[in-house]
């Protein structure tokens, strides 16, 4: 029972990590709480539903979703966030919330309020494999999460782009002074962050076989809590925090405590406790 619970927790943690990753990357570069990131996540799932007409293969559908969501992310950055960099910190936050509400309602108007299934065909029939500990679907989610996280790790740590992000993170002007095309770096950051969120959208749509307009609302704020818990801007801190929260939720929910503490506020309670001890999150720095 323990191992199965652990797998349940890690699977959820993997999903949280994919959603939160983009959020932390964006915050790292622009210091913006990008709440409409969850709208991009839901958009990914909807692109999945549309892409099904082209090909039922999960990989093809995911790639398409990543492409579209990446572009949408760049558009958001260009059209919405860049012009607002000058104004006070709260303005992009409210604009992002407005965008998120707008996206949720656009999904409803475009695809109807009902839940849409996402019956994708998984390569090598991975989803049929069922062992006592891990279900097929969980295997699909875990393997995809690992692939995407490794991709992100590679880009961030081993490419010039990743270096440009680190420089931009420290200081816009100095980074630009050293020849970093800051604009392009920020755009690429949004591209990757949003693409991964799009992939997460498809994955969650497949795992639960359900795509609906408000599927982004819980991840939106829970991902925010996890991002802060891991240390805003610290990518790996966030991934670890996501896994931790996934596991804690799995075990806490079935324990007597679960009757008092609803699952979705566990992340926040953990956040408040940690922030009181370490104001910059588990792995955050000043």
């Amino acid at each position: 029972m323990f191992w199965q619970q652990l797998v349940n927790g890690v699977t959820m943690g993997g999903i949280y990590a994919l959603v939160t990753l983009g959020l932390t990357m964006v915050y790292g570069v622009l210091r913006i709480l990008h709440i409409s990131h969850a709208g991009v996540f839901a958009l990914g799932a909807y692109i999945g539903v549309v892409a099904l007409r082209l090909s039922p293969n999960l990989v093809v559908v995911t790639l398409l979703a990543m492409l579209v969501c990446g572009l949408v992310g760049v558009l958001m950055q260009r059209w919405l966030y860049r012009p607002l960099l000058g104004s006070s910190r709260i303005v992009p936050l409210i604009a992002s919330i407005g965008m998120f509400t707008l996206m949720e309602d656009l999904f409803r108007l475009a695809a109807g309020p009902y839940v849409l299934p996402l019956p994708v065909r998984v390569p090598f029939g991975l989803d049929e494999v069922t062992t006592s500990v891990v279900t097929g679907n969980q295997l699909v989610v875990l393997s995809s999460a690992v692939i995407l996280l490794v991709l992100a790790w590679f880009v961030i740590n081993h490419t010039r782009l990743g270096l440009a992000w680190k420089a931009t993170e420290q200081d816009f002007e100095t980074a630009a002074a050293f020849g970093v095309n800051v604009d392009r770096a920020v755009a690429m950051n949004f591209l990757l962050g949003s693409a991964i969120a799009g992939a997460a959208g498809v994955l969650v749509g497949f795992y639960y076989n359900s795509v609906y307009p408000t599927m982004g609302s819980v991840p939106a704020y829970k991902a925010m809590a996890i991002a802060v818990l891991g240390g805003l801007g610290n990518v790996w801190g966030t991934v670890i925090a996501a896994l931790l929260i996934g596991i804690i939720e799995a075990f806490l929910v079935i324990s007597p405590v679960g009757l008092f503490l609803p699952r979705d506020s566990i992340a926040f309670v953990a956040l408040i406790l940690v922030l009181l001890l370490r104001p910059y999150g588990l792995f955050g720095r000043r």
Partner: protein
Amino acid sequence: MGLYQVTIAITIGIYIILTMGLNIITGYTGQVSLGHAAFFGVGAYASAILSVRHGFPFWAALPVAIIATALVGAVLGAVSTRLREDSLAITTIGINFVVVSVFKYSSFFGGALGIGGIRYPSFFGHMLTKPEYLPVVAACVALGIWFDRRLVRSWLGLALRAVGQDEAAAESLGVDSPRFKIVAFMIGTAYAGAAGSLYAHFMSFISPQDFGFPMSISIISMAVFGGLGTLRGAILGSCVLGLAPEVFRPLVDYRNLMYGAMLLLMMRFMPQGLIGDGSVIWERIRSLFAARRLPGRADERGGV
């Protein structure tokens, strides 16, 4: 004025009180609070429990609810002194979620069923009807405005704005910012407590989801929409976004869409808010007044 207009007027009055309170915390003192609805809830539940279970009349329940909420607000204020801007914003979201789940989970607060049977205030034995409740709300709004004007003109108000605009500079001038942040949270949440009490007695039935995070978003959107940091902005923002759902009601299916779009476009093209300091509209209004006023008035005191 039909009951429909009275209902909307009372709702907008309650929004104005909430937004004025948030404006003191986030507008003047610069502490971003995305969980203001939690304190709206604390005031509502305090007033509901006092009046339903302990027979408090409205006139007694209101002040006690205000004080109770301010004390809870002080706790958030203390927490805020340890946190930096962004992690504070997210923590206030967390507090909103946690407070709502406390209402939902404990039977003391009536659990998921909420609390009903909250009586209207009675005035010398005569139970007020809804139209007669409007003046009570209007009086509270007026009181809130008067207190805000006094605050802005006081040393406390000046110190809060100093903390909000540059904490280190304020500290170097003798303003111990942690203490003032706590005071700002107490005042701001006291406003929310009053609004909560007024809401509970107006609706006569409250349930946990009335005070959830979407409500906090509405409140901060009103403050920012009108022009954060200004009283006039808080009032106008509450009226515009308070009326929006009714104005858009005929567009039955597109209401949420219009609300989101309005917020997005507003922030994108007029970040200072409709009539905030530095907004195009306010500058034009001021130039209108300035032209008529005797030129050369020495100063222009803080945002009216």
